[in-house]
């Protein structure tokens, strides 16, 4: 037998090619992670300011005036500034955090290693997609600094509000234009990333790694990439059309008969509902883009730390595929109240309820995985368990909102805000925390501090329940969302104590996140050194040194002989069989 030829690829030695314009998927993964980390703290900061204004709308804070001269004259935040903060909070969180970290961050770093590849399929495209995303973030943040400030039309940017320029409000001038340009750039970047993930998963799997031996993390990154490819293409087109309506006088989304701010407009023939269809055709799959990778990480960790195979691997794969597929047929449930044909609401609601089924399957299988296990409570595992709890809580309220009949009251109330924050906000972020604690030893060769990690976990877990559970009650009481303050309605005044409680909970939970930041930085330098496979896990990334070498497997080609979750196999020497162990 001929000895295998080993080609070792070395990292470039120059700083710029190695760390800035790097082609290494691991460096690019970290670049995405840090971009998302910056964005999440920015987005959280905005939300704290919003919560403050909702409860103390008349407070004079000199610092506000320093930041926003026109938005907070005399230090008092204006309603338009509140709406700008809200728009930017939503946009930054959805695009630059939830789309970026779970998929492009963790996926970039670990997909190639978990499938035994030395890099992504298209390294140059990978580099381009990161730097394009970076450009999109710069353009987005720039919207704060232009005359009129950031847009106020929300992350959904419904026309006509978003399409008629500064007539409809401050921030709707250049700010809104920059917002759309940023989203279009971001869409382009996401398309490049999606193509890369799909090609990598299909073409670069190690020998023996059949699709049905893929770790569920890889399955979820793969399906997420397909969702991104189909979704962002439509968002890009919609964004371009909206831009044309604003800048070139077209009327894709603008009907005849508009009189905005005492000015008659000449548009005719467009439909505001067209935007909603296009936006939500992207927007609903986007929810799964945010949460699927978290589901993958949770599955991976629950199996690893309960020392049990995942319960119903095939059912889990089919559930991921089912969610991905059905995800494209449910966008209309965002539009039950929009004025679209009410008969289609019936079809959309049945499909929406159907997508609850694979989500429920996943939950049952997670509990099935834990059942009969020997659970090791690392911080990573706590976050994975927290994910399951939040996923149940956030998912269950969807059963209300998926019914058009009940949406007749709940649409655009805080019930909706509570629902999507629970599931696509904090559940997805718990997935990221879990992934961070789990893979930190692989990336740095050191553990994160477990004591700090557990304190951070418990305070955050209780904190997010304290912030977002009351939103459901506000929704039941009819509190509309996207209100800059609650001073104009009698019934809203009575709900202020609930808002005050939530604001305090949000402040506390935001401060607690500094523990995580400290832990991350401190542990990278001073953390306890970790062995190659600290969690006694089975997938391929735990066979390579920490941090992994430039080409991951030092020129060797791993061969996979086992499924990804062979824990506690009767008769085996250890309680885990690695995927690359001999058959």
């Amino acid at each position: 037998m001929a000895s295998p030829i080993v080609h070792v690829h070395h990292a470039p030695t120059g700083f710029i090619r190695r760390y800035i314009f790097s082609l290494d998927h691991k460096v690019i993964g970290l670049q995405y992670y840090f971009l998302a980390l910056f964005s999440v703290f920015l987005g959280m900061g905005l939300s704290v300011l919003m919560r403050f204004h909702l409860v103390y709308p008349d407070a004079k804070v000199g610092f506000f005036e320093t930041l926003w001269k026109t938005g907070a004259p005399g230090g008092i935040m204006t309603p338009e500034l509140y709406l700008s903060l809200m728009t930017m909070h939503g946009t930054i969180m959805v695009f630059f955090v939830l789309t970026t970290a779970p998929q492009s961050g963790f996926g970039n770093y670990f997909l190639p290693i978990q499938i035994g590849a030395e890099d992504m399929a298209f390294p140059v495209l990978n580099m381009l997609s990161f730097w394009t995303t970076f450009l999109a973030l710069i353009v987005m943040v720039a919207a704060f600094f232009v005359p009129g400030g950031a847009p106020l039309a929300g992350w959904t940017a419904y026309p006509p509000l978003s399409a008629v320029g500064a007539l409809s409000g401050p921030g709707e001038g250049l700010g809104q234009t920059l917002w759309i340009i940023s989203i279009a750039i971001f869409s382009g970047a996401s398309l490049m990333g999606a193509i890369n993930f799909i090609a990598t998963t299909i073409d670069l799997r190690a020998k023996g790694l059949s699709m049905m031996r893929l770790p569920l993390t890889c399955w979820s990154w793969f399906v997420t990439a397909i969702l991104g490819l189909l979704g962002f293409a439509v968002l890009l087109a919609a964004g371009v059309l909206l831009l044309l309506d604003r800048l070139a006088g077209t009327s894709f989304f603008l009907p005849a008969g508009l009189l905005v701010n005492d000015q008659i407009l000449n548009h005719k023939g467009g439909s505001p509902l067209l935007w909603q269809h296009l936006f939500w055709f992207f927007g609903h799959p986007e929810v799964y883009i945010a949460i699927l990778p978290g589901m993958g990480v949770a599955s991976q960790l629950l199996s690893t730390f309960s020392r049990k195979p995942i319960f119903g691997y095939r059912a889990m794969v089919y559930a991921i595929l089912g969610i991905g597929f059905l995800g494209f047929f449910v966008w209309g449930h965002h539009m039950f109240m929009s004025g679209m044909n009410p008969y289609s609401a019936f079809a959309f609601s049945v499909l929406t309820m159907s997508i609850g089924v694979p989500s429920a399957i996943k939950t049952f299988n997670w509990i099935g995985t834990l059942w009969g296990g020997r659970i090791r409570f690392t911080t990573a595992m706590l976050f994975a368990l927290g994910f399951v709890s939040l996923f149940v809580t956030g998912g269950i309220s969807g059963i209300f909102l998926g019914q058009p009949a009940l949406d007749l009251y709940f649409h655009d109330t805080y019930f909706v805000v509570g629902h999507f924050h629970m599931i696509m906000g904090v559940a997805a972020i718990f997935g990221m925390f879990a992934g961070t604690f789990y893979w930190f030893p692989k990336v740095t060769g050191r553990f994160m501090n477990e004591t700090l990690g557990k304190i951070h976990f418990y305070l955050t877990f209780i904190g997010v329940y304290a912030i977002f559970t009351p939103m459901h009650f506000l929704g039941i009481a009819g509190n509309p969302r996207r209100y800059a303050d609650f001073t104009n309605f009698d019934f809203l005044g009575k709900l202020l104590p609930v808002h005050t409680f939530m604001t305090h909970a949000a402040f506390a939970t935001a401060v607690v996140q500094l523990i995580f930041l400290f832990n991350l930085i401190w542990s990278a330098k001073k953390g306890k050194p970790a062995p190659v496979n600290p969690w006694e896990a089975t997938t391929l990334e735990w066979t390579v040194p920490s941090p992994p070498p430039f080409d991951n497997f030092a020129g060797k080609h791993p061969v996979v002989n086992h499924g990804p979750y062979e824990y506690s196999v009767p008769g085996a020497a250890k309680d885990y069989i690695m995927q690359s162990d001999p058959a």
Partner: protein
Amino acid sequence: MLLGAVVWVLTLVICFFFLGHYWWFPPPISQHGQFYDAQFTLTLWVTGIIFFCAQMALGYVIIKFRDRGGTAHYSHGNNVLEVVWTSATAVLFIGLVLAGTRIWAAVHFEEAPAGAMRIEVMAKQFAWSFRYPGPDGKFGRTDLKLVNDQGGNPFGIDDKDPAGKDDITSASIKVPVGRPIQLILRSRDVIHNFFVRELRLKQDIVPGMEIPFHFQADQIGTYEVPCSELCGLGHHQMRTTLEVMPEADFQKWLQEQAAQK
């Protein structure tokens, strides 16, 4: 271990607040509202039981199956269980939708009863206007160029059209109790939303569309109407009221308005 207890306590606290109705719906003022509340209650019980059982089970496995030495149970799953819980959730979830369909159909598939009183709604940044057709039962022609908010003509009613001469406009909506009402929802700038909590009804108002929307209020009273679709910087101030009046008072109000013209 601790997490199991935390999950249990959080679950119980949440259930306590849901059962206590501390922040809740205002009482319904229509038959639709009662049907709505029944559907909500049904959904709350079904989802509440699933929520309670799932969280309790999660807390239980966390405590019960913590690592205390020994080996984990080797199992790749159970197909019978998969089929059972897949079918059970599918039946429950789809069943809930079907149960609520009548409510949706009554609002959107059925036309307003014949003889319903027609009121036109005009939403703009950040105010409401309502138009009654007057004794002739006909709305007069409107023209955007004639819109004059300060001059009391938010609809742009054309004086030259005889049908418009007796039209009455109002900044709040007043309706007689127990009569079917047919709204025609219009916006002249951005998307707004007409929402009355006590009616359990909500509908977007989209520029370029005339959306029909019907209801019947059976309880006399004044109810707040908050705009419920983001419409710009004054969204949170876009308030009016729905006043449900005895028939006689309503007729008197109509006559007073007509006399002022």
